[in-house]
Each structure stands twice: as structure tokens, then as C-alpha cells.
């Protein structure tokens, strides 16, 4: 039986989290509340949620930097709580604006990290070269870390994270400070890493990027995992709860807005103008949608087109924010 298989010979999940809880004080609070996660190998998993949802606490606990109140964490089959040193050998964590030692040059820093991971001699030098190439920093290798721009520092930290070919890569806001070219390089590097079977977990406030990159996502709010799964499935589920319609009229948009906000409109419609069109929420089933079309046709509002908007990650996260605020 390989280390990556369980007693039944089944492949272990890349990351398995069970019943994870993180507290910071007695009454107020569970920053992370009984979180369960299963992320397969080779997945690029985006953990999303508004500020204070518990993402960073989850990341720090998974990265063995913080003790949870309770819970179990398995990284590629290794128990991260019981054997943190074993887990660290296959783990890389890149925090938001990760620190770098200003007294070392870029290449010296990577050599140091490689040695910490047990790479020495020719193997170390080759790997350092590969990682510098992966993040396009070969021409900056002799510069001190303090001389690098913010984006370059982030790329160097990413190179350091890739050095030991981690099986689990956790990135908290990895694109901070990166220009579009560097972001494209980051996406390529992460896709390549995932293609080797590594599990990648990341969060970012640039949601459109996550949509391009992630194969699955998890939504967190107030410490709880609200939804998770393959990207398309989550968007479908979340979209069904809050579909949006865009309507064009040759009549008065004010009249249409009033009608949608009134008793004949769908509940929680929140109608508003977008580029001379009216957009509203439509939290209802297909049959209710058919009935709505009949009603709005009969109202004589001059509707010339109705489009159902595709749900994006941004809509889902904004929806999470709205739900949080309304609570």
C-alpha cells in the first residue's frame, strides 16, 4: 500500500478537513465553525467569502501555523496535526504579501529554502534555476530581496513555494501586487503544478481570475462552509437561488422599475438600471418564471427583450455579502 492510499487501497484526497473549529475567545466566536472539506488531487480549489469569513484562519491552520480548537486535517494522507513536520515536507503556504529576508539575494534565498527542504548540491542548484525560470526572475537572481518590486517579491515567494514540489499548495491572495503579465505567469505555474497531481487551494479578491483558474470552489460565510464542489455545479446551485434577469423596454424604465418593485414583481427583486436596461433578481422556479412573463407581458410595459444573466463567481460572493449584511 502506498502512502497515498488508505487501508482499502483507495486514493486519498489531496486535502481532507474534518470538524475543524477555530476560536479566538470565549463567547463571541468561532472564526471557523465545524468545517469539513474534501479536495481531490490535481484540483485548483478557490476558497471564497467576504472579509472575516474565516478563510485566512482556515489557511493558517491547514498550513500548521496555528492550532485549531479541534478538528482533523490530512494533507495527501498525512495527519497535519499529529505530524506537522511530516506535513510541512509536502506543503507550501504563500500568505498575502509574504515576507522575504532583505539581507539575502533572490537566488540565495531560494538556496536556503531548498536546503531547509533537504535539497543539496547539484539537485538544489538545478531546482533553484527551474523555479526562477518558472516565475521569470532569472535576470534578477543576484538582486537583494529588498531591491525587488512588490510583484517580483510575490513571484519570488511563489518560486520558493514550488521548490520542493509540494503536493499541497495553499495561497492566500497570491496575485497581490502582480501586474497582468505576472498574473498570467502565476496562472500557468499553478496549472502546471496541478497537472502534476498537486492540490492547490487559493483565495483571491480578483474573482474573475478565480473563475478562469479554479476547478472547484468553496463558499465561506461567518466561519461556515456554505457550499462547495465543482465550479460549474456551485454556480448553478447558487445561481438557481438568485437568478438575474435583464429587461429592455421601449416604454418608461421608471414605470418598469416601479412595477418590478411593486406587488406584481418577484420578491426581493431589487430592480436597478444597467446601461439603459433594467436588471432584477429572480429567486424563483422555471414555472414561476413562465407565470411572471405572462404577467409582465399583460402589464403593457413595452418589454422588447428579456435575458437571463449567467451567474459569475462575483455574483455569488456579492450574494454572500448581501446575505451576511441582511442578517
Amino acid at each position, binding site marked *: 500500500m502506498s502512502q497515498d492510499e488508505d487501508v482499502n487501497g483507495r486514493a486519498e484526497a489531496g486535502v481532507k478537513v474534518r470538524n475543524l*473549529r477555530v476560536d479566538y475567545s*470565549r463567547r463571541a466566536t468561532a472564526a471557523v465553525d465545524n468545517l469539513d472539506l474534501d479536495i481531490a488531487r490535481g484540483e485548483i480549489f478557490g476558497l471564497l467569502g467576504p472579509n472575516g469569513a474565516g478563510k485566512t484562519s482556515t489557511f493558517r491552520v491547514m498550513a500548521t501555523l496555528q492550532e485549531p480548537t479541534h*478538528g482533523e486535517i490530512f494533507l495527501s494522507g498525512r495527519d497535519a496535526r499529529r505530524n506537522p513536520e511530516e506535513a510541512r515536507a509536502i506543503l507550501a503556504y504563500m500568505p498575502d504579501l509574504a515576507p522575504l529576508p532583505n539581507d539575502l539575494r533572490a537566488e540565495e534565498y531560494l538556496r*536556503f529554502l531548498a536546503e531547509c527542504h533537504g535539497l543539496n548540491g547539484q539537485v538544489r542548484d538545478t531546482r533553484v534555476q527551474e523555479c526562477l525560470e518558472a516565475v521569470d526572475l532569472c535576470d534578477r537572481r543576484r538582486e537583494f530581496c529588498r531591491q525587488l518590486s512588490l510583484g517580483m517579491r510575490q513571484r519570488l515567494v511563489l518560486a520558493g513555494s514550488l521548490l520542493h514540489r509540494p503536493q499541497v499548495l495553499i495561497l492566500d491572495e497570491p496575485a497581490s501586487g502582480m501586474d497582468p503579465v505576472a498574473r498570467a505567469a502565476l496562472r500557468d505555474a499553478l496549472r502546471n503544478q496541478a497537472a502534476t497531481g498537486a492540490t492547490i487551494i487559493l483565495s483571491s479578491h480578483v474573482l474573475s481570475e478565480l473563475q478562469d483558474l479554479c476547478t472547484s470552489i468553496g463558499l465561506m460565510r461567518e466561519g461556515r462552509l456554505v457550499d462547495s464542489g465543482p465550479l460549474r455545479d456551485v454556480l448553478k446551485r447558487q445561481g438557481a437561488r438568485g437568478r438575474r434577469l435583464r429587461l429592455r423596454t421601449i416604454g418608461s424604465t421608471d414605470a418598469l422599475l416601479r412595477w418590478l418593485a411593486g406587488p406584481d414583481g418577484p420578491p426581493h427583486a431589487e430592480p436597478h438600471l444597467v446601461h439603459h436596461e433594467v436588471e432584477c433578481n429572480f429567486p424563483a422556479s422555471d414555472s414561476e418564471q413562465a407565470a411572471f412573463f405572462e404577467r409582465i407581458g399583460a402589464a403593457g410595459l413595452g418589454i422588447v427583450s428579456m435575458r437571463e444573466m449567467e451567474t459569475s463567481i462575483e455574483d455569488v460572493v456579492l450574494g454572500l455579502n448581501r446575505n451576511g449584511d441582511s442578517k
Partner: protein
Amino acid sequence: MNAAPPLWKIWRNPIVRRYATARLRWGALVGWSIPVQALSAFFWLVVFLYSTKYGHISSHEAAAAAWIPILILQGFLWIMKGTFSVAVGIAREGVEGLTDAQRLTPLSAWHKVLGYLFGLPILETVLVASLLPWTAASVLIGNIPVAIVFRVHLLLVTAAVLHHAIGLVTGTVIRQKIVAGTVSQLLVIVLHFIVPFFSRLGAGPLGHLGVETAITGELQPLFLSHPKSFLRTVRFFQFDLAMTGYQWLVMAVLLSFLLIILWRKWKRAGAHLLSKPLAVAFLAWIVVMSLGEISPLVRDGTLFDPAGRSPSKWMAHGSSIAEPVARQGMMIIWAGTVGCIALLTAMLVATIITPTLEQHWSALRALRSKGPRRIAWSSDPYSALAWTAGLGLLATTGWYYLAREVMETPGLSFFLRPDSSMPVIFIAGLLIPLLTWALLLEWRGMKAAFAGAFIFWIVPIMIVVVAVLSGTHAAGWPKWLAAMSGFSLPYLSLVQSSRGLEHFPGMPDLHGPWLVSLSAHGILAAVLWYRLRQARTLDPAPAHAA
């Protein structure tokens, strides 16, 4: 992938190599080597040439004498500058978040401890090594026995590593570069220049935290035909031990405790500096060392009369107090101060092992998920109250032993005798203020405990000192106010359990203040205990708040 290098191969430790790369760049090395080599050459040659030309001593002795400034320079570089570099370096790593990054590497906690311990002061180590040719010149020209060279360097290396470990703990705990660096330098100054002064007043073990005495003892055979034995041996209980071996052992034990502290912090960032059993062992070690070194001073009468410079003679000088009475007064002050220091030491160790309420609640929640279990009695989140009581009893034992020995030693004590109630009164006088402190600490945290101790235990004494100096009679309200301080209780307890005090002219009656202070502290402790018990309970279903 290769495994981490063996622990003993320090030069292969990645952290040592990282600092060797960063701190041993040509610019820094040359920049530091020029003044260091210039100074060492200057001092060595000045001492050697002056001694041979004007001191009328042989070139052998002159070369040996020239070794001393080299040792002082090595000590300064390694102990002062090295400790500063370590404290500032590790504090900076903590502030910048690099220790978190280091935590993520799969090196063991011991690799990290030794890596930083030997890596951070690597420039100073190289500079010290660069002075070895001057040492070699002294050894060869001065015919210095290899055994002496070995023992001196063993002491120097151990002291340097010990101080670097102190710097590492300081920087780990304080986490502010400038403060950590300043505190580390103050500690070095205190250990080497201030503490030796107190060691002559009966705080014997403190004198062995610096290496000057032992190194002086090692060097004196080079210059004196009849070396002074007190510089070569230490009297420990009834044993005469070699100074070098004894001092090395003291430093090695202290270093072991510091290394354990660092290992615990690398293993788990939120861990207490020492586990509860180790904290007890640490205090027990301090108590045994203190008793072992002080009791011979009591028995041979040198405690209050070091080299004939008796403080009691000074007290009696120019006053109407007879010298024996003054000596008995000194004895009371000394024994009360020992009690006060015992209380302070126990408070300090208790602070290390006392959990916060957050730690307690977190442990309760973790256990709740596993069913009905209790927090392990020796774990960090377990209440430190019982352990603190144990620490208090240990400290009281040491205090009682010394106070009794002082009062029962013929020639030292003329009319003071211990009362049979002394053990009980001592336990109450130390344990009650100690537990009051520990309860406040556990309930409201360190800031509140320190603020409380300052306002209610120190400020009243300051007020009394000012009042008495301004002419207010001490037997009036000042004695009541002073008694309210927890730090007064050891003195009051001593007075309360001693017989023969009527020989002191104008001695105020302290029974009332002692009883009131003890009762007040007892009631306060009971209230704090009740509040702590309430605060410790966990809400049945904690609500979420991000």
C-alpha cells in the same frame, strides 16, 4: 529528497548557512576585522611591551598578561555584541513574519533552535576566532599550560552560548527589535556588573552567571606564586568544589532550561516558556543552589561581615545603637528580604506557567468534541493554582531554612530566636500573597496583575517612604499602609515568628498590621477565586462571530 543534516553538524544546518551567507559578506567582514585586529594588536603590544620594558617582568609573564585584553575583547565581541545581534535578529524575524515562514520548513524544532543560536551571532564568532593568533602568541611566548587555555576557553564558549540563548529567548518573547536589543544588553550588564555585587550580600549563585570570577581564578596561577583559594573553589553546603567545574555546571544547567524554552516555542508558538513540572524543577534548582551557596556563608559568619566590612558596623556607626543590636537588625532585614525575593521568584515562575482564560476555554472546547474528559493536569491550559501553591511551598522551604539557620547560628544571633510557629506563619506569609497574585493573573491576565501589584503593593511602600522621610512617625498610619503591600508580608511574618524583638529600642507592635494584611489578602484571594471559577465556565453553545 535528502534528510536534514545531523544536529551536531552545525555547519551544515541550513539556518547557520543562511546567516553565514548574509552576515559574512566581504564588506562586513573586512569592515569589522580592521578595527578588531587593530585594537587587539594595539592592546596586546602595549601590555607586552610596557610589561617587559617598564614592569620589570619576564617576557613569559608579559605575554601571559597580554592575553587578558584579548580575552576581554573576545568577551565583549561574543557576549555583548553577539547577544545584541541574536536578540535583535530573532525579534526582527518575528516582526517581519520570517519565523512563520521558517516554521513551515520541515526542519525539526532542535534544528531551528541550534540554527538560530549559532547562526545569528556568526559574524561575532568569526571575529572572536580571528583573535586566536594573539592568544596563540600569548600561549607560546608565555608558556601557558594547555589545560588553563582549555578551561578558560571552555568557560568563554559556554558563557557566550548561554548569553546568546538569553538573547534568543529575549527576542522571541519581546518581539520588538529595539526593546529586545536593549533588554538583552541590560541583562548582560546586570549579570556581569550588578549581580556580582549582590552575590557578596548573600545571593551567592548570582555571582556565577558571569564568568569573570572563574576566569580570574584560572589565570591567577600565571601571575601569583600563592593563588587565592577562594577564587579557585566554591563552598557548596559542606563541599569544596572546583570553581571552573562548578561554574560550568551552573551555566550548563541554565543553558539547558533556555534551550528547552526555545524548543517549546519552535514546537508550538503558543506554548508556555516552561511546562509546569519543568517550572517546578527550575525553582527547585534555584532553591538548592541558593541554599548550597548561602548556608556556608551563614555558618562561617562571613554573610554579614565580608572581609571585615560589616554593614551592621556601618549601621551602628555614629548612632546610639549597639553593634550587636544593629547586627540583629541587619539579620531581620536580610531574612525578610530573602522571603521577599522568594516571593518574587515564585511569582515570576508562576507567571510563566499560568494560562490565560482563552487557553483554558479553547482546551475545554477541544475536549468537548471528544466527550467528557478533563484537561491534563500538567498541560499548559490547566489551571496553575495548585502548581503555584507547590512553587510557594518550595520557595517557603528555602526561606525558612535560611532564616532559621541565621537565627540559630552562634556568633551571628545574640538574642533573636525562631518561634515554634515560624513554619506556619512563613507558609501563610508567602503563600497567601502569591496565590492572590496567581488568581488575578489567571483571571484578568498579565497586564491587570502587574498593574494591580504596582498600585496596591508598590505604591503604598513608596508613599510610606516619602512620609517617613518627611517626618511622619513610622509607628502611626505608615505602618498600616506599608503592611497592606504583599511584599511587606514576608517581613511582617518574620517579625511575627521571631522571639527576642523586645531588645530593639522603640520597636513598633506589628501584630495588628500583620493580621489585617493577611486577612485582607486572604479575603481578596477568596473573592478572586470565586470570580475565576465563574469566568472559567464555558457557554453551552458558543455563538459564531467572525
